[in-house]
């Protein structure tokens, strides 16, 4: 077989792969954003959460048709948004059975109003598990060696079988991240079952307490610790024996210097998961293992 036949055969196979996936990929438009989304299950699509900036309704475009999509959940911890669009009748993508391997060839298939976009690349890093900046724990950290335009953010990452391995999003410092497909599946299942993505809930309000040199030394802490300012009735925090005035030094062994960190760690977990707090009361330091609950529904 001559070299030219080989490469044209490869081209044809790649084109066919994109063609098959194309049916599931939509262009997303709102007042502020242009990105991509893909069908994951009947009437439910996923896309990147962060660029949506709280948008609640979107237009989903494909092949000249346009339909309205409603953002059901926007999970900034995992960067996954779930969108409902009954009109977007399209086959769902198949999840890949194998975890992505380093060096494996991948394609990011996006869509703009004008048509399909594709970038080919490879898996740069696949190691797990990984805690995101916003506190969610993902099965693996996936870095992709591929070009990702704004319009392709939220697009599926496909392997050479045309199966989805991840959703492509833009990370810090021009990195292209893959949100593992297991996380996508978990988010969509949650939305299908609960209508939203449940977050963990501890039931405390905290304020940061900056420490002077002496106090840092004495508490063996960093620049700040958190002071419990309130404990909610009937909350996991109350059951665990947290009291107003307790100092929180660490969560799961990591120093706790800002309420943001605590928020991320709590919200990154699901109700039923546990976390360990290092608590100081007076001169006593102990560790509390707490099973997180769900945020109670407000009184109407």
């Amino acid at each position: 077989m001559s070299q030219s036949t080989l490469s044209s055969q490869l081209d044809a196979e790649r084109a066919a792969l994109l063609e098959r996936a194309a049916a599931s990929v939509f262009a997303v438009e709102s007042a502020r954003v242009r990105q991509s989304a893909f069908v994951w299950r009947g009437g439910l699509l996923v896309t990147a959460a962060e660029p949506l900036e709280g948008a609640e309704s979107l237009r989903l475009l494909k092949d000249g048709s346009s339909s309205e999509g409603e953002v059901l959940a926007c999970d900034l911890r995992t960067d996954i948004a779930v969108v409902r669009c009954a009109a977007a009748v399209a086959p769902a993508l198949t999840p890949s059975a194998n975890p992505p391997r380093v060096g494996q060839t991948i394609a990011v298939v996006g869509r703009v109003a004008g048509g399909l976009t594709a970038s080919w690349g490879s898996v740069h890093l696949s190691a797990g598990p990984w805690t995101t900046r916003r506190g969610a724990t993902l099965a693996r950290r996936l870095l992709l060696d591929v070009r990702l335009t704004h319009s392709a953010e939220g697009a599926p990452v496909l392997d050479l079988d045309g199966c989805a391995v991840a959703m492509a999003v833009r990370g810090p410092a021009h990195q292209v991240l893959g949100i593992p497909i297991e996380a996508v599946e978990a988010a969509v299942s949650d939305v299908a079952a609960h209508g939203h993505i449940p977050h963990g809930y501890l039931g405390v309000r905290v304020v940061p307490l900056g420490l002077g040199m002496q106090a840092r030394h004495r508490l063996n802490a960093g620049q700040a610790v958190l002071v419990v300012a309130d404990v909610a009735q009937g909350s996991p925090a109350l059951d665990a024996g947290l009291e107003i005035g307790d100092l929180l030094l660490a969560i799961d062994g990591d120093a706790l210097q800002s309420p943001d960190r605590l928020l991320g760690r709590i919200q990154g977990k699901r109700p039923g998961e546990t976390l360990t707090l290092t608590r100081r009361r007076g001169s006593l330091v102990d560790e509390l293992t707490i099973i997180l609950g769900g945020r109670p529904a407000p009184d109407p």
Partner: protein
Amino acid sequence: MSSPSSSVAAPRPTLDLPAGPPKSRIVDILVAAFHPEVRGALHRHLEAGGIGTALEIDSAAALERALTDCAEPLVISGVRWPETAPFLAAGRTHEAPVALLLEEQLLDARHAAFRAGAAALLPWPVPVTALARALDSIVAGFRLLPRRPSLTPAAAPRLSSAALSSRERELLELVASGLTNKSIARRLHLSINTVKYHLASIFAKLDARTRAEAVSEGARRGELML
């Protein structure tokens, strides 16, 4: 003058300070607040009431140090909760009574600060004479709450930035759980426009541009239950 040895008739309940050496007030008053204008205002108040001079403290670490130096310290702090929580915690660690002067809408027996062991919740601003009497009672070991939150003149100068209303807090919690405006409206039986109105107010108060910013700023200021 009474002395322990004097033979007095039937003991009479009294709110005076315990008899003993003639100490008008031997306690050390520590005025602890993060904002200089709050410290200044509290301090001026103490001087105006002839209650004495106090030590101004601007951080919980400094309060801890001062508390270890004082024989019989009394901590006065204000005017917002939970930003005063660290001072209360420090006072509690050293078993010093802590009186919190709080803005009117925060005065409530169910208030977290009272549950946390604050010796007194007093309204800010408080009349000078009432403050003097309150401090006497605290030194005598009593805990104080205003009968109803209306001791203060209506036009009280506010020393702090705006805090969230309880409705706004509730909304912020739902935003934190990742709910969209539409589902928040459904949960709280509000119209979508009311939700947007509240959110705009929350964003303005927290100086936030995005939902994520509002949530993390709310957590930072202790407005959000985590």
